[in-house]
């Protein structure tokens, strides 16, 4: 059933993308983030290193019904790593639109923890607390957007893994011959709407590789503070050998405008992730599958172009935490001066440990978008 669905979806996506192709202008953007970092390398040793990240984005422009984007990411250290972070074409027709390629998907609710994200998981892949957008992951997909009214839409999606090219490049390490299996495919969809003033989202994803059914829902509303929550469950299929797993995440946000000195907007966010079947006792080296994790965040917009932030991931199970404090000075359009101090608090065997590599450090540099 899934194979047939997969084939139809793929063919439909390719056909639509090809038939709507039209000449379009290109709008290029470059985002460079260049930081010098002094960080603990382990034990009592510290080291200094320079690290840059760059994203070259080429967007189509000028065509009303077709949009395309190619983004190349690079990490510049003593070597250079390259990645294609976005490569998609979107096209719209009366009543629906489709996306084919590698693109971000944002299911559920949550800045850091998001139990509704059944695609990338409730804990962000990178977990970089200095990142502007913490959840910035993309996946190869074919999706459709079907409007169901002003504030509602449905979004079916097919997630096919990218073809393993290591055999053809000669870099395969696991005896790969470039083959692929339909078993690596996932498919599902979501519906987003508004019910009684609450943004409501419900969805489902079937992962053939693990043979699991993953329904979820997410809500966003306001009651004294801005609140959001998400819940998902991974239900194993027959003979999968897996246990059912549930995850719950919540978030509270509040912004306070300070009318006296020091003036500015002070915002607070607290997110939590609960996994009843996660690890509830400390394990050596720590685990991001602990049953409970917290994410507190405070941001002070001291001036229009100057803000300070504090973010942390707290692991109550082993009483360890990661702290990041930063400053972000938007000097000119596109140019930011960035500075961060980060520290892990905990023992070496905890999820976060001061003596671990990267256990403490300071970073400073520039970001420019042009």
């Amino acid at each position, binding site marked *: 059933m899934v194979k047939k669905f997969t084939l139809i979806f793929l063919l439909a996506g390719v056909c639509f993308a090809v038939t709507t192709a039209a000449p379009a202008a290109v709008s290029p953007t470059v985002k460079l983030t260049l930081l010098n970092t002094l960080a603990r390398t382990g034990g009592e040793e510290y080291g200094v290193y320079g690290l840059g990240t760059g994203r070259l984005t080429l967007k189509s422009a000028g065509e009303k019904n077709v949009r395309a984007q190619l983004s190349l990411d690079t990490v510049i250290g003593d070597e250079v790593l390259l990645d294609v972070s976005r490569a998609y074409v979107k096209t719209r027709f009366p009543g629906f*639109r489709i996306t084919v390629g590698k693109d*971000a998907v944002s299911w559920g609710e949550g800045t850091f923890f998001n139990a509704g994200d059944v695609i990338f998981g409730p804990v962000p892949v990178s977990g970089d607390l200095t990142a502007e957008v913490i959840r*910035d992951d993309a996946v190869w997909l074919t999706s459709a957007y079907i409007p169901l009214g002003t504030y509602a839409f449905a979004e079916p999606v097919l997630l096919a893994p990218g073809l393993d090219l290591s055999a053809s490049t000669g870099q395969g390490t696991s005896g790969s011959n470039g083959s692929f299996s339909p078993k690596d495919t996932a498919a599902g969809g979501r519906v987003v709407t508004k019910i009684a003033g609450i943004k409501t989202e419900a969805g489902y994803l079937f992962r053939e590789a693990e043979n699991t059914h993953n329904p979820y829902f997410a809500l966003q509303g*306001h009651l004294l503070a801005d609140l959001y929550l998400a819940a998902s469950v991974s239900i194993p299929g027959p003979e999968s050998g897996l246990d059912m797993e549930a995850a719950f995440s919540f978030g509270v946000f509040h912004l306070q405008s300070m*009318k006296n000195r020091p*003036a500015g907007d002070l915002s607070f966010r607290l997110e939590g992730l609960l996994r009843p079947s996660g690890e509830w006792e400390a394990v050596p080296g720590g685990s991001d599958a602990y049953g409970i994790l917290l994410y507190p965040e405070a941001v002070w*917009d001291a001036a229009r172009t100057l803000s300070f932030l504090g973010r942390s991931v707290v692991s109550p199970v082993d009483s360890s935490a990661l702290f990041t404090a930063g400053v972000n000075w938007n*000097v*000119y359009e596109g140019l930011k001066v960035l500075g961060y101090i980060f520290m892990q608090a905990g023992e070496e065997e905890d999820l976060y440990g001061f003596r671990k590599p990267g256990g403490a450090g300071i970073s400073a540099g520039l970001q420019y978008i042009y």
Partner: protein
Amino acid sequence: MKRILIRVVIAFIVPPSVFAVSAEDVVRRLEKNTVFETSRVEGSMVINDRFGRKESTFISYGRGTDDMLVEFTSVEEEGMKILRTSDELYLFFPEAEELIRMQGTALKESVIGSDMSYEDMTGGKGLLSSYRADLKGMEDVDGFSCYRVELEAKKDDVPYYRQTMWIDREIFIYRRVHKYSRSGKLLKIVEIEEIREVSGRHVPVRMKLVDSIKGNSSTYFTVTDIEIDIPLDSVLFSLEELTW
């Protein structure tokens, strides 16, 4: 001295009815002038404070008092969109494909670091449905004779409890607005610096917004191109267009 005496005499002997218009009339004529059936605006937003200067550009589409879609076109915010309808405000960040519904205290957040908050974009239902208007007389603003109209909130779902507007007597465009909290604290100051005639209508094309609490900062909005009463597809003001 003679001039002051004349003004005092006029103030005492001339009844308010001589203003010939009521506060509600003035506000209605203001809204008739500043609210378009549809519009498409290209413009820029220059944010200044003691730490730096930032310029962003945008295209916005409007329909009546309620609906607005803003898309930022400057490189730093490119593709970010804001959708306002009668009762909702949504943001869309294209890089993360993230759709955010703004509500509660999040509405107090600044729009891309400017002196304008998301809250300032709400409340498009018409001033007279949210405020009681009172005409306080006439005053000159930058050499233009204006009605001074005090607005006081009828209900709590407005961002500013009280507003004072100086509305040009000739063209019925406000020249200056002071916005206050319930406690009477001056929160925002709006000043119109340039007005242009477009299709027979007077349109403010350069406006200064100051957040008086934060001080030392200002945001200039400049309209570089405007079309009014043009055909617009209603799908523009929906999540479908916001997320496109």
